[in-house]
């Protein structure tokens, strides 16, 4: 079977990803329109937003299994550098993004908070993996696991999975870019969930 399909499989909507490009599309236009009073400012803002979203430098912050997937994301096959986010900085001082990739334990949580604090603004956090999102598999008996990193630091994007595939992290990054761009991106619940819900015949 061909794994390396270079083209999207049937039914995949390429269009939706083009929200990434630095181009005013409808939704962005709406945002812009509302600010249209000060055109220059908006443009400058736009340019800087573009810069911010095109150059998100993550801090090298690997915690657990997900960190390996984070590495895989930055590695050959998925290459997060394509998004300009490949410049992993070892020090939080120069980073924009903290990818909390893995289980946040009680002992680590304070350190995580400190590292987050030490990052200069503007800064973002991606919670990667079930553990970082909500304790994941360690929810029930994890006496030493923080159930959700959002209890420690504000999280911008949640990337589900255990571990999330590299693609998902990339997708999360794109959602973060959307967020920086000033819009909340597209509807987030996958369509198939609601589709199936719709298919069920009504009672009565």
């Amino acid at each position: 079977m061909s794994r390396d399909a270079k083209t999207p499989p049937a039914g995949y909507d390429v269009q939706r990803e083009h929200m990434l490009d630095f181009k005013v599309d409808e939704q962005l236009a709406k945002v812009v329109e509302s600010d249209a009073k000060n055109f220059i400012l908006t443009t400058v803002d736009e340019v800087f937003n573009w810069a911010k979203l095109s150059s998100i430098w993550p801090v090298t912050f690997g915690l657990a299994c997900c960190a390996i997937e984070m590495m895989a994301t930055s590695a050959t096959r998925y290459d997060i550098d394509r998004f300009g986010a490949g410049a992993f900085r070892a020090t939080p001082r120069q980073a924009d993004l903290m990818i909390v990739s893995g289980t946040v334990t009680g002992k680590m949580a304070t350190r995580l908070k400190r590292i987050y604090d030490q990052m200069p603004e503007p800064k973002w956090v991606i919670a990667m993996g079930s553990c970082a999102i909500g304790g994941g598999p360690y929810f029930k008996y994890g006496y030493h696991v923080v159930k959700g990193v959002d209890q420690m630091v504000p999280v911008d994007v949640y990337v589900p999975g255990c571990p999330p595939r590299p693609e998902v992290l990339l997708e999360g990054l794109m959602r973060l870019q959307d967020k920086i761009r000033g819009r909340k991106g597209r509807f987030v619940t996958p369509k198939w969930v609601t589709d199936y819900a719709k298919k069920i015949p009504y009672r009565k």
Partner: protein
Amino acid sequence: MEQNAIYELLAGHLGEGALAWHEDAVEPWAEIAPERIADACLFLRDDERLDFNQLMCLSGIDWDGYDENGKGKSVAILGYTDEGQPETTDRTADGDLGVAYHLYSHAQRHKFTLRVRVAREVAEVPTVSHVWPTAAWHEREAWDLVGIRFAGHPDLRRMLLDEAWEGHPLRKDYVMPAMWEGVPMEGRPLAKNPFPATEPATGDDGPGGPTPPAEA
């Protein structure tokens, strides 16, 4: 060497009173009086017929609620509820604590299992870290998680948890912490049904509601 033969040798060294032999188990094991364990280990290591130069594993065990006859009656441990709150119970644990040693000899290629059992209130076993350096960390871990103190250990600090941590998690009656040094350990109830009968689900980012945006 056969397990029985090893036991014979060990028994010869320690004298009969100090140990008991459980032969029919999946893995035969010798139960040793706690105060003799270091002695026994030294013997096992230094006797050239035995030559147990590797301590494969050292496990601390909380025997509370264990049913020897194996009817699956062990007590359920406490966790967090779905809402993320720590579960509590009135039950007080009372069983013994124990330590199991698994030994291996690179030269003789045989294994041996030792166990000691101490009362919960005593919870102190002599260290074997001078016999096998590797025991140092295992013992620290056992102290950390099960709360067995190892007498004579050079550096008996907690291993995995913080020094300030309360309780020993692998004890059967351990109650999960709700908060630790300002870090919330409890979960947040996420399982709430987002569809209260009256309120409509809303929003772009709202939970997966039935109102997807119109597709192109």
